């Protein structure tokens, strides 16, 4: 019996790789396994090799694995490209149609299943993926009913006849392979999972769900990989709560529409990736200057320019911090787990309103698109805080004065009323302004207003601005990272610990304002420090050096080939550093 397993399906884009993966993993989720997915895809719709990998475990996992146990291949290319990952004794399930062969030097067992032939016999080659997934499910010896239920849900809309055909395809696939193998393979028999119902979703869904929970009722956005799922989720859900999604003409419209809607009192978000964020920069300044709440998600992908639109990278951090002209208060937060995507979204909407600032939530492609098991999401942790928003009726203003929307206060945060409120009229402008919002070039006023705005965020810290796992008082190595890499680091640390290398681990979750005082003691305690990032210039490492120091101790571990770190890579690099 084994406690974990990695499964991959590969083929041409548009061949059913996605749907097979979806049904396969849904069924595993129902059985209570922990799952972590990785999608390899390119920016074409049909054609081009694509593959989805899922790691299955009886214990929580948050990383892709170094190797692979089972590869399901629709074509020889999928075998040639991925067989190298197979561990000795792994399995390839492939379509007999193309007479599959295992590359030299790979010790794997091949099951050539007449995938296309069975599918065509049942009526259409479209059902290839069902035959293939049935075959691999059969080999694992997992309960068929659970799988059939997932198939039913996938095809239910198309009527019972279609469901039946697909179920039959699954059965035939399993039957064929089990005959060849002589029954389910013992070496791939997974221990039973805890059977508890788990949530299984991509980061973008967690973000979108978090925004609904936060009271977001409008979204304005322009499609882009890897952010579009947020918009697609919200267009399905927001109308149920009276709201809507507007697909705008560009990201400038998206962000300014969100500013208008937030100004008028509705929690509104936009989401994009690097190219869209670049277009939004001037408007982010407007939000900062006019103290209008704003929430933006940046799902980072490979840059610069169009870069690697479907690949992993963490290279927007500098742009998000320094991107707008002039100096404004803002928050840049980087969730590092799927659960944090959900909770950070709620907190971001609260902070945007409490501090009256733009908040940018920076994920990366792997976090946004990797489908994974999430811990239960707690309804009781959904709190809505709107700060100094005045909802009761205001007294009449004396001698025709305007409402002091930018009143100078101790904490720099002014009371806010929404358009429509009687006696609340004031002006809002991106021009420097006085306490009533009127344009002012007065030098003293300028200083006061700059200090007011920038002062608001001096002590702003999100929940767990850093997340430390620090069992060692003076570790040989402190590993620092952000975004989706945390789980992979933990696996590498296990191996390092086993070899007697003591390590601590910190995920930085708040990029701006930088939580220096929280990070500093960890830096001080470590003998060496490595900062691990998916970019070429070490943006996080530079932030740490700039804000705290320790230039002599800090080393970079950078990966910018478009793929996330693997545990073995981190393990090897850390060993070499010591």
């Amino acid at each position, binding site marked *: 019996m084994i406690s974990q397993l990695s499964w991959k399906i590969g083929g041409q884009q548009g061949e059913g790789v996605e749907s097979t993966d979806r049904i396969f993993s849904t069924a595993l989720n129902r059985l209570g396994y922990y799952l972590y997915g990785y999608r390899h895809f390119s920016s074409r719709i049909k054609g081009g090799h694509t593959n989805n990998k899922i790691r299955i475990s009886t214990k929580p996992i948050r990383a892709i694995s170094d190797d692979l146990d089972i590869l399901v291949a629709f074509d020889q290319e999928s075998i040639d490209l991925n067989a190298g990952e197979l561990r000795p004794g792994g399995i390839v399930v492939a379509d007999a149609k193309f007479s599959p062969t295992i590359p030299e030097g790979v010790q794997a067992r091949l099951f050539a299943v007449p995938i296309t032939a069975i599918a065509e016999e049942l009526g259409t080659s479209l059902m290839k993926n069902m035959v293939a997934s049935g075959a691999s499910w059969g080999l694992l010896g997992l309960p068929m009913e659970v799988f059939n239920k997932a198939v039913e849900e996938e095809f239910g809309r198309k009527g019972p006849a279609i469901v039946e055909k697909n179920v039959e395809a699954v059965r035939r696939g399993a039957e064929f392979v089990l005959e060849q193998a002589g029954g389910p393979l013992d070496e791939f028999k997974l221990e039973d999972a805890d059977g508890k119902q788990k949530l299984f979703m991509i980061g973008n869904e967690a973000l979108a769900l978090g925004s609904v929970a936060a009271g977001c009722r409008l979204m304005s956005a322009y499609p882009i990989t890897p952010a579009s799922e947020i918009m697609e989720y919200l267009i399905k859900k927001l109308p149920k709560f009276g*709201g809507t999604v*507007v697909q705008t003409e560009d990201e400038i419209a998206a962000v300014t529409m969100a500013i*208008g809607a937030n100004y*008028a009192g*509705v929690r509104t978000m936009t989401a994009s990736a690097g190219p869209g964020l670049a277009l939004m920069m001037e408007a982010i300044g407007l939000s900062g200057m006019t103290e209008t709440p704003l929430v933006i998600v940046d799902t980072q992908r490979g840059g610069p320019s169009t870069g690697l639109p479907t690949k992993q990278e963490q290279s927007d951090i500098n742009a998000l911090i320094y991107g707008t002209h002039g100096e404004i208060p803002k928050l840049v937060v980087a969730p590092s787990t799927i659960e944090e995507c959900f909770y950070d979204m709620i907190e971001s909407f609260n902070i945007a309103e409490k501090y009256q600032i733009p908040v940018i939530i920076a994920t990366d492609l792997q976090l946004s698109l990797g489908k994974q098991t999430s811990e239960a999401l707690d309804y009781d942790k959904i709190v809505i805080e709107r700060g100094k928003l005045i909802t009761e009726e205001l007294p009449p203003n004396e001698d025709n004065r305007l409402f002091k929307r930018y009143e100078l206060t101790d904490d720099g945060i002014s009371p806010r009323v929404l358009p429509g409120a009687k006696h609340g009229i004031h002006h809002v402008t991106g021009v420097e302004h006085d306490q009533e919002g*009127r344009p002012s070039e007065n030098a003293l006023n300028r200083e006061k207003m700059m200090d007011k705005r920038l002062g608001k965020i001096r002590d702003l810290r999100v929940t767990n601005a850093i997340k430390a796992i620090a069992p060692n008082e003076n570790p040989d190595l402190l590993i620092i990272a952000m975004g989706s890499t945390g789980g992979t680091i933990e696996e590498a640390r296990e191996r390092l610990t086993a070899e007697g290398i003591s390590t601590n681990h910190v995920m930085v979750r708040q990029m701006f304002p930088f939580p220096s005082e929280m990070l500093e003691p960890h830096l001080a305690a470590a003998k060496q420090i490595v900062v691990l990032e998916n970019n070429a210039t070490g943006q996080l490492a530079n932030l740490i050096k700039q804000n705290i120091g320790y230039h002599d101790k800090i080393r970079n571990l950078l990966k910018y080939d478009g793929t996330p770190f693997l545990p073995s890579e981190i393990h090897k690099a850390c060993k070499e550093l010591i």
Partner: protein
Amino acid sequence: MATFKEFRNNVKPNWCPGCGDFSVQAAIQRAAANVGLEPEQLAVISGIGCSGRISGYINAYGLHGIHGRSLPIAQGVKLANRELTVIASGGDGDGFAIGMGHTVHAIRRNLDVTYIVMDNQIYGLTKGQTSPRSAEGFKTKSTPEGSIESTLSPLEIALSAGATFVAQSFSSDLKQLTALIEAGLNHKGFSLINVFSPCVTFNKVNTYDWFKENIVNLEQFPDYDPSNRIAAMTKIMETNGMVTGLIYQNKERKSYEDLAVGFKQEALSKQDLKLSRQDFDKLLTEFK
């Protein structure tokens, strides 16, 4: 009921004496009172330019944003609170150069926003460069040999983009302008009102006198039917874009707010934000 005086504030406009924008300000104030608004029920969202300052000169809620973006901001305001009356406003550079993409798409989207463009055929705030509305051959600081690009016709573009309300006026004709803004405010959907608003400082060609000579008022055509889109297009072309009055109105097409499935009839901004436990659990089941 508020009178136009209640839409005045005590901020002194920084426009040059004689600038056409003063009359546009007055017309908005009158029209707002005439349609029965209270100042707090109106939001004026403006762009950047001399004209963009207008939101600060009207006693109403106002947001003076960034260059070319008054329309998306105004649409956001309207979506958030459809009980507000929303005016977007700015110059011809703001709306037909840097903001042209938004103008076309706001027209297509047809949210209930009234867009008033102060068209002076030049860039005022940046001190006299060419605008998409400048005539060919027009000499400015940026076109010392005369503009060699064709003049943009916003009215034709609006019609071809599916506009449901297209009007044009002249800032000197306060009566017509006020009436058209009133009609725009009452129109359920997007209304474009292009206003010839002379820049007395930098445009020495398109002066008040020049407009008086060249404008063709639709009043001259008692049989003109503003519900006829082809007639509207023809009239714009025949007059070389100099026609004033209500050029086109489609009262049939519903506004975006009314077409969006599930979109709330009441102001979204007044809604309780908290999700019920039941709704939350229901959302979670999809991920199980």
